[in-house]
């Protein structure tokens, strides 16, 4: 790969930021239980990566790197003196937080939710409602009842949704 054209510009870094920032904040919140602090930490990680000119092999690598960095930052904070002096300390179950299982479970749950939200946001309102219910395991019949529409309309909305998300879904499965 030639480097020349592929440096992170402010524009491409903004894209990366927009694609990861919300879920990283929610992810940090799972450790810190403080949304403002979570945002600050995630922002600091983004600044550090930019300044250190860290390079990534691909998008999976980049995503993994950010999750891992945010996790480490949160854990370091939870272990710090500064935090131990606050009253919230007792609430934190540090040993659980430090496990790989907690890390991966939260990361995948939150990232998947973010991907789904991104997809649903691309849809017209009705189709979005149908897909949301369908993800919650409602059958076509139940969705039809809930939204007071016919089963065929439910099916049509699903078709519209799959067509609209075609690029999204096929790109995901091609990998």
């Amino acid at each position, binding site marked *: *790969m*030639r*480097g*020349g*054209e*592929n*440096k*992170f510009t402010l*524009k*491409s*870094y*903004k894209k*990366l930021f*927009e694609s990861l*920032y*919300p879920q990283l*904040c*929610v992810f940090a*919140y799972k450790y810190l239980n403080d*949304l403002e602090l979570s*945002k600050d930490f995630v*922002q600091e990680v983004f*600044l550090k*990566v*930019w*300044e250190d*000119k860290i*390079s*990534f*092999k691909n*998008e*999976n690598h980049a*995503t*993994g*790197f950010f*999750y*891992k960095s945010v996790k480490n930052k949160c854990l370091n904070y939870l272990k710090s003196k500064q935090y131990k002096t606050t009253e919230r300390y007792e609430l934190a179950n540090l040993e659980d937080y430090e496990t*790989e299982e907690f890390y*991966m*479970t939260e*990361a*995948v*749950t*939150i*990232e*998947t*939710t973010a*991907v789904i*939200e991104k*997809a649903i946001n691309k849809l017209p309102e009705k189709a979005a409602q149908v897909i*949301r219910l369908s*993800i*919650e395991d409602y059958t076509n019949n139940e969705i039809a009842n809930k939204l007071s529409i016919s089963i065929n309309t439910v099916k049509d909305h699903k078709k519209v949704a*799959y067509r609209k*998300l*075609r*690029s999204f879904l096929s790109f*995901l499965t*091609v*990998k």
Partner: protein
Amino acid sequence: MDNSNKIKPLSEELAASLIKNEGNSNLRESEIFDTETQSQMLSKIKTGEYSNLLKEIETKKDWKVIEKKIEKRSKKSFKFWPYAAAASIVLLVSVAFVFNKADNKDVDFGEPVIVNNNIKTGTDKATLTLEDGSTVVLEKGQDYKSNNISSNGEEIVYQPVIKHAGKEINKPVNYNMLTIPRGGQFYIQLSDGTKVWLNSESKLKYPVTFNAGETRQVELVHGEAYFDVSPSTNHKGAKFKVYHQSQEVEVLGTEFNIKAYKDENHISTTLVEGKVAVSTESVNELLVPNQQLHLNLETKTTSKATVEDVYNIIAWKEGIFSFENKPLKDILNVLSRWYDMDVIIENTVQKEERFIGTFNKSNSIEDILIAIKSTGFINTYEINNKTLTIK
């Protein structure tokens, strides 16, 4: 063990299969989570436990904070490191090009010759022509504001103009024009809420405001545009019409694509959703979703066909080029507009070779050429200034 790199592919695959109601086998196959954890994760995802929290995060606002800090700090570091290039994080963008024939010939590959590569990846840019004929250049970093118009240099939005009740006088409409150069693309929202994506080398003429109840009229002078028309029901039943020198499309609120390039001898109108009527000199045709009307500008004849995959036609507005079984010459013609380059294909047989391929518009031209070359159907290529020669 560190599974960080699996977070993204695992999540994307899981999201896709949940949306398509295809279960969650990949979570099981990953062998990272035990059965109980899997079911807890699924229940949280399905009920959208984190959805509301995600929505609370103000990404755009917070980026501004980061952007300011980055700009401030990079100025600082410049003093110390005059030679330091910009941050060099390299993201590999996936380029997939597959040749549509199974047999791969053995060819002697030549090394590409690159002399003074001036071929740049396209960006968001346009020239706005106001009703008095004056022009404004729109590109990143160039904000523009006036009356009901605002642009951040990456898109332009016309706000609806609220008229005083009772005194609704329909004035003659003023027209603005948006010209997208080669190597550009742009998004515009008209004052009625209609959204238009404009591809490279395109020109759109449209009213600054629409008169209530009157037919809304815009003109695609040339080029390619995707319209997501605000429904007539929101505008006292006012129809929406897209004119072109050779045809007219009448719509009632729908999504469709028109491709009418100057250097092509045909116009294609493709309907994605809703209903449109296309009239030319000789015919008046109704289209249903997934249908395409092809107007041959030389013979003035039309043909209507169902498009197998409408996505290939409108992918450009999502930042993707998707070619399904297209001759190399057509692919390179599309690329020449986005990368603003001249293309020479030396071998006439190669011109007609067909490819299947998808790639991101953010790729550099060389990434794409390497992928095409890897199919073995071109020997090599040369870039000299803004000219690409396929050998």
